[in-house]
Structure formats: structure tokens, C-alpha cells
């Protein structure tokens, strides 16, 4: 097992290198000089300043050298300095990462609780009014883009009802609710449908009959026998939905003024603030790979038939 973990960690490094390399290559292809003009202003930068910044950031060197330098620094925990505020990337991204994690964790909790719960309900009451309602609501929700949902929620709860402030404070746990719901809605809807689908299959399995025949109460049959077997695809999905979470976070964070990495990433791309782009990507690959390692371990825990090797 230790060997398995070690191998996965080794692979994680490869993935990290791969992702950052791809990113570097992409950024290289984007036309324009990243420090050539001021961010967000019509004014040109003084050529002397540009030259100085290019040297400072090593942009005068070939891409390969830049990449190797970056990796070299990365190993030491240094992700470079950003182009606009000229502050260390780790310092800029650190608090944002914390904020986004809060959002993501809350969203995943919603995904699981609401998504799986509602999906299970639909499966148990197949073809009932519940099932129809769930199907309708989940599809309708998916039809609405995140930003519409977010803005409606914000409009209702912050502007109209004034239950929460418009400009939130990421350290207040109550204020994570709205953005988290916004972020979770689509995934929760998908989880609900996934759950419904697998659960319908599991419900017909013979071992469910065995449990009933044993006299296990219905609730327990569902909670133990059915759930455990239905939850495997859901776990998979939660693991992979991390990507869409981060993507959705861009929009959610924009709407709720949540100071997280999604927002930072999208602005950074627009501003060609490459150190931030690469920084976020590196973090997100890292987190993702770890997360999926956890998911794979959970698989093995949930389904003993799956052998990790």
C-alpha cells in the first residue's frame, strides 16, 4: 500500500509537470508581451520600465529556461511574483486559496447532502410526483447558468431581504451559504440524477431482497445496503467535479465578491498575469490529484471488489 501511495505521488509530480508545461506552452502562444502594457489602463508603459520588468521576471530568457527556473523555484515553495502588484504569488494566492476552499467544501457538502438526498428520494418514489418534481427542478436548475442563479439569490437575499450583506466576508460561516449554494446547484442536480440512476439499479439487486428477508427495517436497508452501493458513482463524480467547482467558482466568486482563486485566475488570464495563472493551475493540479487519490482510496473502501494496485 505504501508503494501504491508512493507511486501515486510520483505520478502526481508527473501530472504537475505536465500541466504546468502545457500551461507554459499555452501562455507562450498567447500574443503580446505580458508586461508590455499596463493592466486595465489605456496608457502605455514606459519602455524603460518594460525593459526593467522583463529582466526582473526573466521574460527575456527562452521559454525552456523560464520553465526550468519556475520548477526550480517551485520546489523551494516559491511561485514567483505577479506582474501587476509585484507581490509574491504565494502571498497573493494563499488567502484566496483558503477562501475558495471554504466555498468548495461547503459546495461539496451541499452536493452530497442535497444532491444525493434528493436523488435518493426520486429513486425511492420512482414515477411519483416527487420523482417528476425532482427531475423537473434538477433540469430547470441546470438550464440556468450559474451567474443567473447567483444574481437572483444575491438580489433576493442581500438586496431585497437584506438577510446577508452584499459584500460578504469570507470569514463569516453564514455568508458562505449563498455562494456555496450557487456553486453547488448544478453539480447537486447532476449528483441527484446520478444517484437516482444508480439507486434504481441497486434497489433491484438480490442482496437488497436478502436484507429485506432478514427483516432489516426499510430505512436501514436503504441507508446501509442501498446507499453504500449507490454512492460509488457519486463519489467518483464529486472527485471529478472539483474541476467544474473551480470553474464555477470564477463566476460565483465574481458575483458574490468572494476573494478566491477562481476570480484571480480569470482576471489574471485577461491581464496576462502569468505567474498567477500558472500558480493557480499548479495549486489546482496538486489539490486535484490529492483529492482523486483520496477518492480512489474511498473506492477501495466502499467497494472491496476494487483492488488498488
Amino acid at each position: 500500500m505504501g508503494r501504491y501511495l508512493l507511486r501515486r505521488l510520483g505520478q502526481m509530480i508527473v501530472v504537475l509537470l505536465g500541466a504546468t508545461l502545457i500551461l507554459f506552452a499555452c501562455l507562450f502562444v498567447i500574443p503580446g508581451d505580458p508586461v508590455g502594457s499596463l493592466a486595465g489602463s489605456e496608457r502605455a508603459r514606459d519602455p524603460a520600465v518594460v525593459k526593467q520588468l522583463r529582466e526582473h521576471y526573466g521574460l527575456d530568457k527562452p521559454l525552456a529556461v523560464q520553465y526550468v527556473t519556475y520548477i526550480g523555484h517551485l520546489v523551494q515553495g516559491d511561485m514567483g511574483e505577479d506582474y501587476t502588484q509585484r507581490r509574491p504569488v504565494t502571498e497573493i494566492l494563499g488567502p484566496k486559496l483558503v477562501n475558495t476552499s471554504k466555498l468548495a467544501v461547503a459546495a461539496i457538502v451541499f452536493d452530497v447532502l442535497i444532491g444525493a438526498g434528493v436523488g435518493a428520494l426520486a429513486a425511492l418514489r420512482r414515477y411519483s410526483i416527487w420523482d417528476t418534481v425532482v427531475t423537473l427542478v434538477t433540469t430547470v436548475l441546470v438550464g440556468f447558468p450559474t451567474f443567473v442563479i447567483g444574481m437572483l439569490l444575491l438580489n433576493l437575499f442581500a438586496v431585497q431581504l437584506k438577510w446577508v450583506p452584499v459584500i460578504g466576508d469570507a470569514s463569516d460561516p453564514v455568508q458562505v451559504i449563498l455562494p456555496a449554494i450557487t456553486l453547488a446547484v448544478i453539480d447537486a442536480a447532476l449528483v441527484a440524477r446520478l444517484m437516482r440512476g444508480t439507486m434504481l439499479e441497486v434497489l433491484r439487486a438480490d442482496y437488497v431482497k436478502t436484507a429485506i428477508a432478514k427483516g432489516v427495517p426499510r430505512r436501514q436497508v436503504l441507508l446501509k445496503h442501498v446507499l453504500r452501493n449507490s454512492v460509488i458513482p457519486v463519489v467518483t463524480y464529486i472527485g471529478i467535479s472539483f474541476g467544474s467547482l473551480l470553474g464555477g467558482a470564477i463566476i460565483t466568486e465574481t458575483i458574490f465578491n468572494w476573494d478566491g482563486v477562481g476570480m484571480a485566475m480569470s482576471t489574471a488570464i485577461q491581464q496576462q498575469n502569468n505567474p498567477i495563472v500558472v500558480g493557480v493551475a499548479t495549486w489546482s493540479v496538486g489539490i486535484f490529484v490529492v483529492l482523486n487519490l483520496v477518492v480512489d482510496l474511498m473506492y477501495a473502501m466502499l467497494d472491496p471488489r476494487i483492488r488498488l494496485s
Partner: protein
Amino acid sequence: MAEPILKVDGLVKHFPLTQGIVFKRRIGAVQAVDGISFELHKGETLGIVGESGCGKSTVAKVLMNLERATAGQVHYKGQDITGLTGKALKAVRRNIQLVFQDPYTSLNPRMTVGDIVGEPFEIHPEVAPKGNRRKAVQDLLDVVGLNPEYINRYPHQFSGGQRQRIGIARGLALKPEIIICDEPVSALDVSVQAQVINLLDQLQSEFDLSYVFIAHDLSIVRHISDRVGVMYLGKMVEIGTEEQIYEHPTHPYTQALLSAVPVPDPTGREDRHRIILSGELPSPANPPSGCRFRTRCWKAQPRCGEEEPLLANPEGMAGEALHHSACHFAAEREHV
């Protein structure tokens, strides 16, 4: 005697035994099959009987190359097939077929019976030309006693016995030279069972097929087999002709087995002489030293724990009944 069509040599299959949920540690191996050798000749049926869990299905799977052997070889017509892959393996599989033990999981739930039974023809199109396939499938269903009208049904719409027959039909489709039947009739009622057995017999005499016939039902095994092998805990403990095994068993386990056969006649059931085996059932992960049967054997001596009896002709026996038996104290029992 001619060259055997199938020759199994020192076959070993160990499954790693792991512990723990997340961090699985290998704590040993299930010695499912531990050094088995036998031969199968053309037109012959070799019955294999033995305790449940003794490795019969594993032998079948290894023979089919569905599980890789840990050690040992399987020669088909002189060719070692244990390491084959790709085309060569496909060619061999065309001639060796397996009827699975479990009729529930061995049928694809999303294929109709017609598709399941017809699949062999699709894989080996040379066996039945395209236009003939449907008919061939119907004939096969008919042969195994299934209503050909069921061709469009799905496996879950059948009873266990009916499913087992679907599996047999699939195994027969290619009319292979060797069919390995892993308990093909265990779920059938006797009448259907009789049909299937008759069918197997008939196919054999017609096409000179060879069978490896794994079953628990000793009467059926006797009926169909030319030779019978008795397995115990991953080992072959006795092998001989049907006559030799049933009439002159020399291994205590075989004797116990035969004594336990239920007789389909309720008269006098209260006073049957059964050898009831006592003692702890050993685990294949940690088999007893020496003779594996010694923990439950009434003849066991200290020697049995020290020296593993080899499968050979017992000393001091001769004549018609002489056959291989892996017991230090092999002897016929008076009672049977």
C-alpha cells in the same frame, strides 16, 4: 494410448490474500490449486468431484486461460497454452469451451438469449455462415430444451435452470473439442438434467468431444464420466476410471464422499452408513502439512503430518482396481 488432447502439468494457482480495507496488506495466499496434473484424451470425459472450495472452478478457469496459472502448464495437443495471447489464444478457445458454474452472473443481462447463444458464431464466423446463424441458435436452444420462442428474452426473465441451459447452449455452439463443464446441471431439475446429460453424451459420441465435467452430484458424474478425479483442498487425491473410483475407492476422502451420496429413495434412510467427517475444515490459505486431509481423516497417523502422500499407485495393490491415490494408507473400504 494416443497423445492426450489436454495435459495438465503441476498446475498451481494462488490468490493473494490481503487484509485491511484501505491499506491492503498481503498476508499470504489462498492456495486454490496447488499442483494438479491430469490428462484428458480425445472422446473421454473426466469427472472432477470434490469439496466445495477445493479449487475445481479455479482449475476450469486456469484451463481456459481466464486466470493466469501461478505455475505449471496446460498442453493442448502438445502445445503449452498457458502463456498464449491474441490470435493463438482465440484459436485455442475455439476448441475449448467452458460452461460456467453460476448461471446468474455468466449471462450478460443486456443481451437477449439469441444474442448470447449467437455470439460464438459472431466471434468465430467460420463456424456458421451468416444466414444460418439464427437457425443455428434456435436449434441450440431446442437442443438444450429451451423454447426457441424465447430467443428475444433477456436472462433475468428465466429461471435458474433455464439460464443454466442458456450457458450450455452457448458452450455447445462452437462444438469445441473440449468442453469444460463447471457444474452445468446443478440447478436443473432431474428431467432437464437428464436431457442435458443425454445431449452431452450424444454430442460426445457423435463428434468425439472430450469433457471435463465438474459436479457435486456423484451419480451424474458416474453416469457421464470415463475417468474421475477427486480433489481435496487444491490437490488431486485420487484419480481413476469411473469403475475404480466408485467401486474401489482407496482414498479416505473419496470413501467419505461416496458414503454421503444421498440416495433418491426414502426407504431405510434412517439406517444409512455415512462416514461423517469430523474435525476442523482447513483453510486453503493455510493448509495442513503433509496430507491435507489428515485433519479430518480417521486413518491419520503421525506420518501423514510429516510426509505428503503422492498421487500414485498405492503399494501392495494390483489388478483391475489399481489406480492413483494420494494416501499413505490407501485401501479399499469394506463397506461400500
